[in-house]
């Protein structure tokens, strides 16, 4: 694995995607869980717990998209045009949801309507992101540097399975986030929800993992060929350990551990994805190096990335630290 500029930017974009998935994941999860929470204090507490951070979380999506265009323009064009429908659905859902978030407060008369928009937007966005991921994994037909497939190539049982899995996973992140951030009846409800969602997520992850090696022979070899299997087998082993700790901590009533374990599950999921895909960015044919912009473009961006990303991270970390602890139901503080 050579470590050059394209590889460096591949890591940067993978990091932006991971940051987006786990950060926006828990606040989308809170939206998905909304119908399960009673109207009133519990809903207000839940939304207050993500109010200070959700929009910052979403900015990572812009970073991911903008970064992909800048560093891997070929892959950006191929992936987004192949996945036209789910991408557009995701964007519209996010716009709708973001607006619902703000206007829920400003327009109490129509609050039930905005709540529906908030949940609907969250579910559609999560489903569309999962479908996008699933469709990417099953491969994208390309010819002459452009997408050469049909309009509904993305719609398969596998991509739908990944879509539903991601909805479950985000809901798990959301419920464990609320376990960490809430008290009383909301927290008790979220312990129960998290337990069930934990089971659903593990089952879904197992189904996706079992199906992936059958999509392409390359994936099969990547996971099961000797001696690589000694390395790749660590992922499922770690998943098993994390799962055990997740359920144990939920049973024991821990506040922080369940959320951290849910984060770890997503991290391992992304590692698994990386193992399957590498060195391709658009499977089955376009590698990181095929898709990368020339070194002159990457070098030009390097100072900006090296200076600004650490500062953004430091500030984001600091702000989460400031907001640690439990949230009330009357506006955030």
């Amino acid at each position, binding site marked *: 694995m050579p470590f050059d500029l394209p590889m460096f930017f591949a890591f940067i974009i993978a990091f932006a995607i991971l940051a987006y998935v786990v950060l926006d994941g828990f606040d989308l999860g809170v939206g998905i869980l909304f119908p399960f929470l009673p109207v009133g204090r519990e809903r207000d507490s839940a939304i207050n717990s993500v109010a200070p951070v959700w929009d910052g979380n979403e900015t990572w999506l812009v970073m991911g998209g903008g970064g992909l265009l*800048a560093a891997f323009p070929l892959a950006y064009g191929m992936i987004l045009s192949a996945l036209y429908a789910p991408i557009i659905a995701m964007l519209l859902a996010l716009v709708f949801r973001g607006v619902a978030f703000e206007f829920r407060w400003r327009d109490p008369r129509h609050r039930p309507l905005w709540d529906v928009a908030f949940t609907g937007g969250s579910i559609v966005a999560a489903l569309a992101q999962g479908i996008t991921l699933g469709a990417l994994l099953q491969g994208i037909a390309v010819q002459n540097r*452009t997408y050469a497939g049909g309009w509904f190539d993305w719609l398969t049982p596998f991509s739908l399975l990944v879509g539903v899995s991601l909805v479950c996973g985000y809901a798990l992140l959301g419920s464990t986030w609320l376990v960490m951030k809430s008290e009383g009846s909301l927290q008790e409800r979220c312990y129960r929800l998290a337990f069930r969602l934990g089971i659903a997520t593990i089952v879904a992850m197992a189904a996706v993992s079992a199906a992936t090696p059958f999509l392409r022979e390359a994936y099969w070899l990547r996971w099961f060929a000797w001696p690589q299997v000694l390395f790749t087998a660590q992922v499922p082993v770690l998943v098993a350990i994390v799962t055990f700790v997740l359920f144990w901590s939920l049973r024991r009533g821990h506040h922080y551990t369940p959320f951290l374990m849910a984060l770890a599950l997503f991290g391992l999921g992304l590692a698994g994805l990386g193992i399957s895909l590498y060195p391709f960015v658009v499977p089955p044919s376009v590698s990181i190096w095929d898709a990368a912009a020339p070194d*002159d*473009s990457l070098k030009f961006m390097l100072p900006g990335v090296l200076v600004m990303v650490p500062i953004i991270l430091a500030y984001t970390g600091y702000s989460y630290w400031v907001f640690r602890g439990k949230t009330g139901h009357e506006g955030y503080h």
Partner: protein
Amino acid sequence: MFEGLDAIFLARLQFAFTVSFHFIFPSFSIGLASYLAVLEGLWLWTGRQVYLDLFKYWLKIFALAFGMGVVSGIVMSYQFGTNWSVFSDKAGPVIGPLMAYEVLTAFFLEAGFLGVMLFGMNRVGKGLHFAATLAVAVGTFFSAFWILSANSWMQTPAGYAINAGGQFVPADWWAIIFNPSFPYRLVHTVFGAYLTTALVVGAVGAWHLLRAIPAEKNANEGARVMFSMAMAMITVVAPLQIFAGDQHGLNTLEHQPVKVMAMEGHFKSYPDGAPLVLFGWPDEATGKNLFAVEIPKASSLILKHSWDAPLKGLDTVDRKDWPPVPVVFWAFRIMVGMGMLMLLLAAVSLLARVRRRLYDWPLLHRFALAMGPAGFVAVIAGWVTTEVGRQPYTVYGLLRTVDSASALDAPAVGASLLAFVIVYFFAFGAGTYYILKLMSHPPHRGEEGPRRDQPVRAAGITPAPAVAESLATGKEA
């Protein structure tokens, strides 16, 4: 339902719709950020309460406008890939990094200074707060700098090479960033944003001056100060903008003469002085302007500074290289017309100021109120002129629009366009409604800033109140 339409046309329509919607908000917030910095600076300098009240009044509106700009911007960063994948592949190595810097600058700002600016007043100290306000003003400018550089490169590409894969690759970054049309476009756009903001601020001031009952007129200090400041701004910037626009036009004539031919409605060449077509309907089929009102030789005077200077027309250009002439022609006239009205407002308000009737001349206030949206109209018309005038190319002279699109299918693009129109109508309609609602209340003494018990934040203004608080008190919130 969309089978009869051309997929590329629909994709262009979708891009035009989403980018126009997106640009409405930044064109307002770029100017407003600077206005806020001026207000806070004046407050610190003079200590007058009214500047602080106005600062807090406009800060609430800024928060909403900035938020909507960010939400509509998410769509833009993906649409290049969904609809214009070939363009993304070919031009990505050059414009991608410019756009990446735009995203980084915006993100950097949102994460850092906006929160302090919105919620940190009284908590971080005056100096630090003013620094944050200045940083936001400078930052919005840099955001505009990068995105306009990318846009200008598409108009007047420079500093590139073409590689084996047919991609534009960077050869000289300095030449790419400061491509020939960029300095003119930057100045023209930033002036446009300042005028847009001044017209909105002036209209809000005028509205409250009109509504105030005569006995309370003198009490409404906030409305008077904002009206006066806005009119002063328009008086200074409107003439400058007309000069900058003229220079930008001359630059366009040098680098994109065909665009100017369409703007002027010059179908044929004029070897001894071209007429200025004031109005008319450019008919592409016959190559004539129907119902035209012309001033002989005036176009040559404006463009070449000589009555008899020859000007080439569209007859020297292959038909397949024409931009859509009527759109460019009329968008240009709408923009110029708005500019002339702004100049008139500038002159009338200057007259009122000299005669000390700035605050008690209802006719002027009605005029200023009616001109409230004029900046947005001019900005959108100006963008239509320059972007439609770039057709039939995405990268001018090098990459045709028809060769830039993804393998698009009309029903799919039509459906997504329809979905965008519906969602934007609801989402940004609601946002605009709340902005107008804020504007309908007059600024009053002891105005409060954005409320802390409501999440009135824009994207990324992470945990602003608590951060500001902990910065101020030196301990954790």
